[in-house]
C-alpha cells in the first residue's frame, strides 16, 4: 500500500495559495470590500496635516497678515475630517478582527479534524509537534499578518498613493525627486528582508536546540545525577543558550542597521526638496505653502518603508503558514470513512475473515503475506509470534487503522472498507499496548469509552474487571487526577484504565494488543480471569506475550515473518513441530530457569 505522507506544503504558488486559502474562509471574504473602503478613508486622514499646513501658509497667511477666520474654518474642517477618519479606522479594525478571527478559527478546527481523519500511517510521517504547529503557530502567523502586516501593506500603499497624488498636485518635479530618493531603498528592501529572514530562521533553530538542551536537565534529572554528569550537561546547555543569544543579537543587529536607513534617505529627500524647491519657487512653479507641505509629506514615506522589511518577513511567514495548513487539508485521508453510503452493522457477535491479505509499510519490505483466515463469532483467539512477525500489523488491519495492500478484510461478510466508521468503531475496539490517558480524572478517562455513562456504570465496569480493590487504594478513587498523558499513574495502572475504558465501550469484538504487559503478575492474572468472564459471548482476540493466554484460547494464530504459519488449539500446536513449539519452549525456560 502506498500511504502518503502529509505534504510539507501544498506545492502551490504564493498567489494560488492565498486564493485557495481564501476560498476556504468565506467569513473573511464576506464584507471585505467594505472593510477595504473604510481602510482607504482611514488612510486619507494622513494627508490632513500637510493640506492644513499648506492652506494656512498659502491662503491664511497671504500678504503676511493672518486671515484668522479662514484659518479657523480650515482648522475646524480638518478637525472634523480627523474625527471622521478615526471613526472609520475604528470600524475598519473591528471588522477586520472579527472577519480574520472567525475565518481562522474555522480553518483551525477544520485542520484539526482533518489531522484526525488521516490514517495513523499518514499521521506518523510527521512529528507530533509539527502536526500541532499546523493548527496553532501556522494559523497564528496568518492571523498576525492579516491583522498587522496585511493592514500595514494596505495602509502603506494607501499612504504612499495619496501622498504621491497630493505631491503631484503641488509639483511634479519635486514628486519625481522624492521618488528618485526612495526607489533605491525600495529595491534594496527585499534583499534586507532575505537577510533578516535567514537570521530569524537561525534564531528559530537555535531556540529549538536550546529548549531541547534545557529539557534534558529536567527530564533526565535522575540519570544525570546517577552518572555525575552535571558538569557535562551544564556545558551543553551553556553552549546552546549562548548560541541562541548570539543568533538573536545578530538578527537584532540587522534590524538595527536597516531601520534607520529610511531616516537618512528621508533627510536626503528633504534636503533635495529645499534645494530644488526654492529654485522652483523663484520661477513661480510652487507656492511656499506647497513647499512646506512637501516637508510634511515626506514623513509619510518613512513609516511604510521602516516597517517594510518586517511586513515582508511576516508576509512570507504567512504564506508559508497557509502552505502548511493547506498541505494538511490537501492530503486526502487514505483510510476513508464511507460515511452515509457505508454499511451499518447490526449488533451481535462478530466474525472476521482475512482473504489473501498482503501489507507492507511505504518503502519497506512486506510485513504480512498471504494471510487468509476466518475467526468465527464468540471465539477467543490468541495471536503469538516474535517481535516483527506481523502481530500488530494484523491488529491494525483488523481494526481498519490501515487498509491492506492487497486482499481484503471482512467482518460479518462485509468488506471493512464499506463499513461506516461510526458502526465499525462501536463494534470493534482495540486496546493498544501503550495505555494513553488524557489529562483529567480517572473517571473522565474511563468515560471516554462511553460518553453517556453514569458514574455508577463506571464503578460497575471497574468492579466487573476485578479492579475494585485497586480503585480503593487510590488516594481519591475515581476522582484521582491521572496527570498529563496519565503520567501520575504507573505504566501498569495506565493499562488498567485503558482496559476499563475499552470494556465500558461494550464492543462486540475486543482486541487486546499486549494490553496488560506492564501490570504485575498477580493483578494480571486477576484481570485475565475477569476478562474471560466479561467477554464471554463476544469475539475476543489477544496478542499474547504470555503462555497462559495462548493456553486458554480456543485457537492460537502463530505468525512468523509476516505469514500465518500455524493455527489451532494450544494442545494440538504444542505437540506439532514448528514455530509454536519453539516459542513455547522459550517461554517455559524463561519462567522456570
Amino acid at each position, binding site marked *: 500500500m502506498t500511504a502518503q505522507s502529509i505534504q510539507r506544503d501544498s506545492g502551490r504558488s504564493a498567489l494560488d495559495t492565498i486564493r485557495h486559502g481564501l476560498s476556504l474562509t468565506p467569513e473573511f471574504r464576506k464584507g471585505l470590500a467594505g472593510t477595504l473602503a473604510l481602510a482607504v478613508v482611514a488612510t486619507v486622514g494622513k494627508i*490632513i496635516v500637510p493640506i*492644513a499646513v499648506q492652506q494656512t501658509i498659502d491662503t491664511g497667511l497671504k500678504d503676511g497678515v493672518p486671515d484668522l477666520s479662514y*484659518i479657523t474654518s480650515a*482648522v475646524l474642517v480638518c478637525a472634523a475630517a480627523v474625527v471622521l477618519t478615526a471613526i472609520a479606522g*475604528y470600524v475598519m*479594525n473591528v471588522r477586520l478582527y472579527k472577519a480574520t478571527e*472567525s475565518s481562522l478559527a474555522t480553518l483551525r478546527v477544520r485542520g484539526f479534524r482533518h489531522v*484526525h*481523519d488521516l490514517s*495513523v500511517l499518514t*499521521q506518523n510521517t510527521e512529528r*507530533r*509537534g509539527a*502536526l*500541532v504547529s499546523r493548527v496553532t503557530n501556522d494559523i497564528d502567523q496568518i492571523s498576525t499578518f492579516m491583522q498587522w502586516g496585511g493592514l500595514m501593506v494596505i495602509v502603506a500603499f494607501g499612504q504612499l498613493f495619496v501622498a504621491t497624488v497630493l505631491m503631484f498636485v503641488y509639483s511634479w518635479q519635486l514628486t519625481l525627486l522624492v521618488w528618485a530618493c526612495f526607489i533605491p531603498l525600495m529595491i534594496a528592501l527585499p534583499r534586507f528582508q532575505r537577510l533578516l529572514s535567514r537570521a530569524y530562521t537561525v534564531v528559530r533553530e537555535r531556540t529549538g536546540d*536550546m529548549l531541547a538542551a*534545557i529539557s*534534558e536537565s*529536567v527530564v533526565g534529572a*535522575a540519570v544525570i545525577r*546517577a*552518572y555525575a*554528569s*552535571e558538569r557535562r550537561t551544564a556545558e*551543553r*546547555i551553556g553552549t546552546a*543558550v549562548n548560541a541562541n543569544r548570539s543568533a538573536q*543579537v545578530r538578527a*537584532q*543587529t540587522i534590524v*538595527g542597521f536597516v*531601520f*534607520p*536607513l529610511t531616516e537618512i534617505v528621508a*533627510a536626503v529627500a528633504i534636503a533635495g526638496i*529645499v*534645494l530644488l524647491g*526654492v529654485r522652483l*519657487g*523663484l520661477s513661480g512653479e510652487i507656492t511656499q505653502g506647497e*513647499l*512646506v507641505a512637501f516637508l*510634511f509629506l515626506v514623513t509619510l514615506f518613512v513609516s511604510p518603508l521602516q516597517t517594510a522589511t518586517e511586513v515582508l518577513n511576516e508576509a512570507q511567514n504567512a504564506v508559508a503558514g497557509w502552505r502548511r495548513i493547506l498541505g494538511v487539508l490537501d492530503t486526502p485521508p487514505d483510510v476513508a470513512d464511507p460515511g452515509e453510503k457505508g454499511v451499518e452493522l447490526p449488533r451481535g457477535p462478530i466474525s472476521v475473515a482475512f482473504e489473501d491479505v498482503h501489507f507492507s509499510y511505504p518503502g519497506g519490505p512486506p510485513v504480512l503475506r498471504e494471510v487468509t483466515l476466518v475467526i468465527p463469532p464468540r471465539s477467543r483467539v490468541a495471536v503469538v509470534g516474535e*517481535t516483527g512477525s506481523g502481530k500488530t500489523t494484523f491488529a491494525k488491519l483488523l481494526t481498519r487503522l490501515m487498509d491492506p495492500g492487497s486482499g481484503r478484510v471482512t467482518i460479518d461478510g462485509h468488506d471493512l472498507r464499506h463499513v461506516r466508521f*461510526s458502526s*465499525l468503531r*462501536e463494534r470493534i475496539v*482495540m486496546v493498544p499496548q501503550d495505555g494513553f490517558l488524557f489529562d483529567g480524572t480517572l473517571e473522565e478517562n474511563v468515560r471516554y469509552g462511553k460518553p453517556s455513562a453514569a458514574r455508577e456504570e463506571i464503578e460497575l465496569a471497574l468492579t466487573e474487571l476485578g479492579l475494585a480493590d485497586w480503585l480503593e487504594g487510590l488516594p481519591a478513587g475515581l476522582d484521582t487526577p491521572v496527570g498529563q498523558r496519565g503520567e501520575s499513574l*504507573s505504566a501498569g495502572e495506565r493499562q488498567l484504565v485503558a482496559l476499563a475504558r*475499552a470494556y465500558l465501550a461494550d464492543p462486540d469484538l475486543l482486541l487486546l494488543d499486549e494490553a496488560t504487559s506492564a501490570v504485575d*503478575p*498477580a493483578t494480571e*492474572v486477576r484481570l485475565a*480471569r475477569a476478562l474471560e468472564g466479561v467477554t464471554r459471548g463476544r469475539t475476543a482476540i489477544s496478542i499474547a506475550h504470555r*503462555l*497462559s493466554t495462548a493456553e486458554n484460547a480456543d485457537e492460537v494464530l502463530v505468525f512468523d515473518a509476516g505469514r500465518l504459519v500455524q493455527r489451532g488449539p494450544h494442545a494440538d500446536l504444542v505437540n506439532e513441530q514448528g514455530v509454536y513449539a519453539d516459542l513455547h519452549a*522459550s517461554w517455559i*525456560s*524463561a519462567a522456570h*530457569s
Partner: protein
Amino acid sequence: MASKVTSAVMRQGLRVLGVAIRTEKAVFALAVLASAVYGGMTVASSWALGWATQHVLLPSFAQGRVASGALWTGVFLIIGTALLKAFGVAGRRILAGVMQYRMQARSRRDVTRQYLRLPLSWHHRHPTGQLLSNASADAEAAWAPLAPLPMAVGVVVMLVTAAIAMIFTDLVLAVVGFLIFPAIAVLNLVYQRRLSPLATRAQQLRAEVSEIAHESFDGALVVKTLGREDLETERFLRRAHELRDANIAVGRVRGLFDPMLEALPTIGVLAVLAVGALRLSGGSIVVGDLIQVAYLFTLLAFPIRALGWVLAELPRSVVGWERVQAVLEATGSMEYGSVDHGAATASSAPAALEVRGVSYRYGEAEVLHDVTFDVPAGRTVALVGPTGSGKSTLVQLLVRLVDPDAGQVLLDGVDLRELAYGGVAQSVALVPQQTFLFDDTVRGNIALGQESADEDVWDALRLAQADGFVARLSDGLGARVGERGATLSGGQRQRLALARAIVRRPRVLVLDDATSSVDPQVEARILYGLRDAAETSTVVVVAYRLATIALADEVVYLDHGRVVDRGTHEELLARCQGYRNLVTAYEREEAERAAIDVLAEDEEVLAGEEEGVSA
C-alpha cells in the same frame, strides 16, 4: 486584579529593571547614550526644518533670490541631524537587544545550573512543564521590558528637550504641547492597561488550544480506535472559539485606541496652526517657529508610545522574574563528603552494599520503613514486591539520588553521604526504569563524557544485546539518537541505557526493572551474559519475572515499604505467602483454571438445560 496591585507591581517592576541595569551597566549606559542622541536629534531635526523654513524658504520667496550660504547651512543641518539620529537609532536598537538577550541567557544558565544542583527530591515536587517554562518563557518575560527601555529613556530626553525648545520658541504654543503630549501618554497608559489583561488571556488560551491539539494528536490511536473524532473536534472547537472571542476582544481595544492615538497628534498640529495664527498676527512668533512646532508634533507622536510599552511589559516581567527567582532561591542541595572512594580502594573489585534501618517519606506518606539488608561483594540480590511497595525509591537511595530520612546506606562500610562528589557514580551504576537518552550520538550517550575506547563501547553493547541494531544504524556509534531517543524503539533504548552502565565496569550494578521493554528471549540472553560478566560486579535487580529472580543469590521481598522476608528464592517460596502469591501467580492460575473450566462447563450444561426448559 492587574489594576489593583498596579503600584506594587510598578515598584517591583522597576526593581527588576534596576537589577538588569546594575548587571549590564556598560551596555545600558551606551544604549541610553545612543537613545539620548536619538531623542535630542529628533527635536533638533524639527528645529533644523524650522530654521530652513525661516531662513531659506521664506526669504527666497520674499526676496526672489536664494541666499546660497543659508541654503547649504540648511541642507547641512537637515542631513547632519538625520545622520546623528540614525546613528542613535541603530545604537539604541542593537544595544537594547544585546542587553535583553544577555540577561535572558544569564537567567537561563543560572536556572538550569540550579536545576542540576538541586536534589532530586526537589525535582519530584515540581512538575516538568513548570520547570521548563521557568527556564524558557519566564526567563524571556522577565527581561522583555529591556527591549523598549532605552528608547523610553530616550523619549524622556526627547520630551524634556522638546519642552525647553517650545518654551524658548513660544510659551503659548508650548502650552498646547503640554496639553497634547501628556494626553497622548495618559491615553496610551490607559490603552496598555486595558489591553494587558485581554492580551494575557488570549495568550493563555493560545497555550490551551495548543495543549488540546498536542494531547489529542498524541492520543490519536485511542481517538481512532474508539471513534471519538467528533468528541475531540468538539473539545478543540470550544477552546478555539474562546480564543477567537478573546482575540476579537483584543481587536476591539486596539481598534478603539490606535485611531485615537493617531488622531490626537493631528488634532495637536491643527491646534498649533490655529493658536499659531493668533500669535503670528500678534507678531510674537515667525512662520518658521510655527512650522518647527508643528513638525515636532508629527515626529513625537509615535516615540511617545514607547513609555507605554515599557509599562505594559512590567506586570508580565514581574511574574516571570519572580518565578525565575523562586528557582534561584530554592535551597537544599546534596552535601558531599571528602572520601574519594575509587582512589582509596584503587580497584574495580565488586563492592559490598549495606542498607541499615532506612526510612523515607514523600510528604505525608512513608514509603520505606526501617529497611535493613545487605548485599555482599560480588553477589546478586533481587528486590521483589508488588507495585507501590517502595522498590524504586529504595533503588534511588542505593545510588544516592535521594538521602534517607533515617538510617544509612553504606558502600564498603562507608556512608554514601561521606563520599566526595562523583564518588557514588564512580562505583555504582544505575539503569532506571524510565530510560533517558540525550540528544547525542550513541557513543556520547554511552560514554557520557567519560573517555571510553570504541572496543569497550562495543563490548558493552554486545553484553546489552544492542550491538546488532547499533551496527545497522547508518553511522554506527556516531549515529544521533534524536531528542530523548525518539528514533529508537523502547527495547532498543533500554539496551543502550544498559550498555551505558556496563561500559563503566561498575563495582555495583543496580537494575530497576531495566529490561521490561525487551523481548523475553533477548532478555534471557542479556541476563545470562550479565551473570557471566557480573563476576566483577555486585548486582541489585528489581524484577517480576522468574527468569530474572532465578539469577539472584538472594531475594529481598518488600511490601508496603518494609522488608517482609529475605532468603533464597526457594526459601521464600516455602515460607513467605505474599512472595509465593506474587511470583507464582501465573502457575497458580494454570492450576486453578483447570478447576474453573470444569465448573464453567457445568454451568454451560446447566444453562443449556434451562434454555431447553424455557423453549
